[in-house]
């Protein structure tokens, strides 16, 4: 008998959660960072959602947050016109990079030596973290605020999405545009999957998949509501999406079929990402919470416990299974 999804709610933020990112898998597990309009990004244990610490220092809403692969460094982008780099083990602020406008996006290279930033001043910047006082390399071209800037193609190229309704692929060395995609509306989110070079873009009710090297379109899928963010499972069999109607949708990547939808958030979903092992996905919402959702509902993982039902037991009818706590509202 299929079980109902029990999302795990991570509370603590007092304003909308606008961005989230996972680290890679480290000897201590994997981690999750959340960007919040309350200006206090938080680090959590990725598989349980347990709070580890809060990065204190920003003086405005934090719009973007990221972790390096080893989860030893964090970077945040904020409305106080700065991007900050943090020690993700001690929580100490390591670097403040002043910008001329709201910063929206931050991204580390694979070796954590460089940081990419983008924001409302329409300029993409590359900072060498070994020489932080040096002037960053600047990439200009976008005609509106940049929403997201990501390293791709082994950190030799950069993908950026802006409010000018374009997604651009840049060469890191020449700082020239290699290719460009234009849309009828603003792109709401972008995810880059290095393994397989897939780019996931959302706009309107559409989730679109592109080849990250050629920017050739692979496929598009339409959701029942306006989508703010989507994420492709590491095995590329599912993808999840969330947006205006507060729900999380799960689709089959191959057939484009909508498999499930889950209610739970009390506000629009702003960001959603799969964990690096694909066992769960995290969503951040206008309601100020993060929720963790199981990919395989009912499996024992993290805080979720698989309880096998006793055949013929009355407990199957309308009550949570033995010894557990049941929460949440879904279909």
């Amino acid at each position, binding site marked *: 008998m299929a079980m109902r999804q029990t999302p795990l709610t991570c509370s603590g933020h007092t304003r909308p959660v606008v961005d989230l990112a996972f680290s890679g898998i480290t000897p*201590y597990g994997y981690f999750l960072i959340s960007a919040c309009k309350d200006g206090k990004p938080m680090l959590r244990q990725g598989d349980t959602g*347990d709070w580890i610490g809060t990065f204190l220092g920003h003086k405005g809403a934090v719009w973007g947050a990221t972790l390096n692969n080893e989860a030893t460094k964090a970077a945040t982008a904020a409305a106080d016109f700065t991007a900050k780099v943090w020690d993700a083990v001690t929580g100490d602020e390591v670097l403040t990079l002043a910008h001329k406008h709201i910063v929206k996006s931050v991204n580390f290279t694979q070796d954590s030596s460089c940081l990419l930033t983008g924001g409302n001043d329409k300029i993409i910047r590359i900072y060498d973290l070994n020489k932080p006082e040096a002037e960053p390399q600047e990439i200009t071209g976008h005609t509106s605020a940049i929403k997201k800037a990501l390293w791709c193609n082994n950190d030799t190229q950069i993908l950026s999405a802006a409010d000018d309704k374009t997604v651009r692929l840049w060469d890191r060395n020449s700082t020239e545009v290699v290719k460009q995609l234009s849309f009828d509306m603003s792109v709401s989110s972008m995810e880059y999957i290095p393994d397989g070079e897939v780019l996931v873009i959302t706009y309107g009710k559409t989730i679109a998949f592109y080849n990250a090297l050629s920017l050739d379109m692979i496929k598009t899928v339409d959701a029942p509501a306006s989508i703010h963010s989507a994420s492709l499972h590491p095995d590329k069999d599912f993808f999840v999406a969330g947006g205006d109607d507060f729900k999380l949708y799960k689709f089959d990547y191959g057939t484009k079929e909508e498999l499930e939808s889950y209610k739970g958030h009390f506000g629009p979903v702003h960001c959603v990402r799969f964990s690096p092992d694909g066992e769960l996905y995290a969503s951040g919402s206008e309601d100020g919470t993060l929720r963790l959702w199981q990919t395989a509902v009912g499996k024992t993982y993290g805080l979720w416990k698989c309880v096998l039902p006793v055949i013929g037991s009355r407990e199957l009818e309308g009550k949570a299974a033995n010894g557990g706590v049941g929460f949440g509202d879904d279909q």
Partner: protein
Amino acid sequence: MRPHVSVLRLPRGPDPNGRGFDPNSPRFIALCPTTISASTETGTDSVQIREEQRARSVLRESFLRTLIAMTNKQVQFHMYERVKVEAKFGASDIDVLNFQVSELHTPIGVQKEALLRCQDVISYSFDL
């Protein structure tokens, strides 16, 4: 009505009194820079730093070799609160946070298998 998936507990929330990043967590202890800072604070003398690094390597190697030499031997541990115990040393974990011991003789009896918390150990000695 289908049953909900059970959970062990809810995710832990933030501590209202602090910003977190527990210095006693295994990750913090393993990844944080050593608290013994280099004696040359200004750090301009690279020869002195190299010498110090060589000394540190020698000390570290000796320490690791003592752990090997101690295996299966009777070791006396001096611990805080005037505690003296003796046990057969088994192994240390990778971050030297715990020592696995057997036949731990304590004032209240012999514990067949135990873990000693290294931060509680002041010194230990054994016969080669």
